[in-house]
């Protein structure tokens, strides 16, 4: 009977064993440290993804919950729990971890999409800018655009810098702005040079050239036709083409001449008003035209009334067909310039009073019209 009663020592052993078991199995940490580390890592990822800027509400919510839960984690650091005890802190952290991971995944995807969009748009606009520059170069119309190409270039450089800094939204904004600048340049070129693609205007220029050739035929004498788009000068005699040379125009020659110093070459019917040989001109030899004629004066007065011409500008003059004195002086401000051997040939074949008709273009598919067609229709504005 006595043997069935457990001794005090054996009871103590049992208690000790239970305590050991409890400390080994039941003494669990409130929150696994790796979970805290995982959330800290997510927080770093969110910072790296600039979540505060791109998803401020979402990030604030994450931070808010993380701060609250971390306070609890710190408070419950020394708490020992039984494994079967419900652990709402761990559950809340697990939920935050899952939501944080989803946010990181979504923002990573969003940032990738933004990066791709910024790269695509930047490449497109840079391509457009190069294409426009190439068309503008082909028709010597850079000056029409004034400061605009530089502004666009600066915007593209900024867009590229923002892209490289990972600021894709700002890159998109800058390249979008550049794209609108390009559209404005395109529109300006169409407005200034649209007449080169206008069939009525071309028909009028063709008529002027035909009349000049017809005059040469009926008067059995010389006549000159200059086409600005084709950059060509053709001499007729008795209505027959005698020679044709390439020419250079004023530095803004493709435009319509409006006033002195604009660098534009005038369009109209003129006559040779004077021949300047060696020593009489700084341009080898020169044929002075009777610009401005009556029509030029009428147009000038009209433009001034409409405010198209600055008040201090005069109509200009001294428009010539001339040669090249030397390479350094080989410039023209609004005239028609030939190489010296060709100038010599022409000089000897014309006289005072020889008609000189300067037109924009003689064919519908001229270089300017082609360039304008290539600019339009442009890609939709970004």
């Amino acid at each position: 009977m006595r043997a069935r009663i457990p001794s005090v020592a054996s009871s103590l052993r049992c208690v000790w064993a239970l305590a050991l078991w409890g400390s080994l199995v039941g003494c669990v940490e409130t929150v696994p440290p790796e979970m805290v580390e995982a959330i800290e890592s997510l927080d770093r990822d969110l910072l790296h993804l600039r979540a505060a800027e791109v998803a401020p509400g979402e990030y604030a919510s994450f931070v808010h919950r993380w701060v609250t839960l971390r306070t609890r984690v710190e408070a419950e650091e020394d708490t020992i729990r039984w494994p079967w005890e419900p652990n709402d802190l761990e559950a809340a952290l697990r939920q935050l971890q899952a939501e944080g991971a989803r946010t990181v995944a979504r923002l990573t995807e969003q940032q990738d999409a933004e990066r791709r969009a910024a790269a695509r748009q930047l490449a497109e606009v840079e391509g457009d800018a190069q294409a426009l520059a190439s068309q503008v170069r082909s028709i010597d119309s850079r000056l029409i655009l004034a400061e605009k190409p530089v502004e666009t270039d600066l915007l593209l450089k900024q867009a590229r810098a923002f892209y490289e800094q990972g600021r894709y939204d700002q890159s998109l904004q800058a390249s979008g702005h550049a794209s609108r600048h390009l559209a404005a340049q395109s529109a300006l070129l169409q407005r200034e040079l649209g007449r080169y693609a206008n069939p009525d205007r071309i028909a009028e220029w063709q008529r002027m050239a035909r009349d000049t050739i017809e005059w040469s035929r009926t008067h059995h004498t010389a006549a000159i036709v200059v086409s600005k788009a084709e950059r060509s000068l053709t001499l007729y005699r008795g209505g027959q083409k005698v020679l044709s040379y390439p020419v250079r125009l004023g530095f803004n020659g493709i435009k319509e001449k409006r006033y002195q110093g604009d660098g534009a070459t005038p369009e109209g019917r003129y006559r040779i008003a004077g021949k300047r040989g060696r020593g009489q001109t700084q341009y080898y030899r020169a044929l002075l035209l009777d610009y401005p004629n009556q029509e030029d004066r009428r147009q000038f007065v009209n433009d001034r009334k409409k405010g198209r011409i600055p008040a201090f500008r005069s109509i200009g003059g001294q428009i010539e067909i001339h040669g090249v004195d030397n390479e350094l002086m080989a410039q023209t401000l609004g005239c028609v310039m030939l190489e010296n051997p060709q100038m010599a040939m022409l000089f000897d074949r014309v006289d005072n009073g020889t008609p000189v008709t300067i037109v924009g273009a003689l064919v519908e598919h001229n270089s300017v019209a082609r360039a304008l067609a290539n600019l339009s229709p442009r890609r939709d504005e970004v």
Partner: protein
Amino acid sequence: MKIRHVLLSIVGMCLLMSGCAQPPAEQINAAEQAVREAQQSGAATYVANDYAKVEGLLAAMKTEVAEQESKFALLRDYGKAEQLAASAKAEAERVKADAAKKTEEAKFAATQAHQAAQASVASTMDLVAKAPAGKDRAALESIKADADALKASLNDVQMMLDKADYLGAETKAKAIQQKADAVSHEIETALAKIGKGKTVAKRK
């Protein structure tokens, strides 16, 4: 009987005292003020992530206050809200100091970039003045137009600096400098090819 009355009074006093627990208005105001100041110091721009964290703390504090206020008056405890307010205030002050430092750095970088761009543009303008009135007058006029546009763009940088948009100003100034250097190089190449030309004045 007397002892029972005393005990009841003590319990009543305790309940009354705990029932009077009020949100820590002073600490909350101080935290909010500190966050506002951090925001005004440019923290949202220059230390955006840290600032977002501060806002997170402030939001956590507000949530805690609201949670306590929703409880039965006798069970309210604003201890944690006080802790959060103190943390938010301390972090906001740190962020404000960081933002001020970063702003100064950004301002310095932008000012430096602006000065470098000004020097480049001035050098370009000098070269334009020396550029030969050579064969390609259109090219020369284009270069002049570019140089004038660059000079005008420097004003935009100054305006950005005045508006404290230092990041934008630095980026634009660097772009201007790059372009000015490119234009200068173009002129130098032309000068090397044909040498200096003489200026010609002619009525056209």
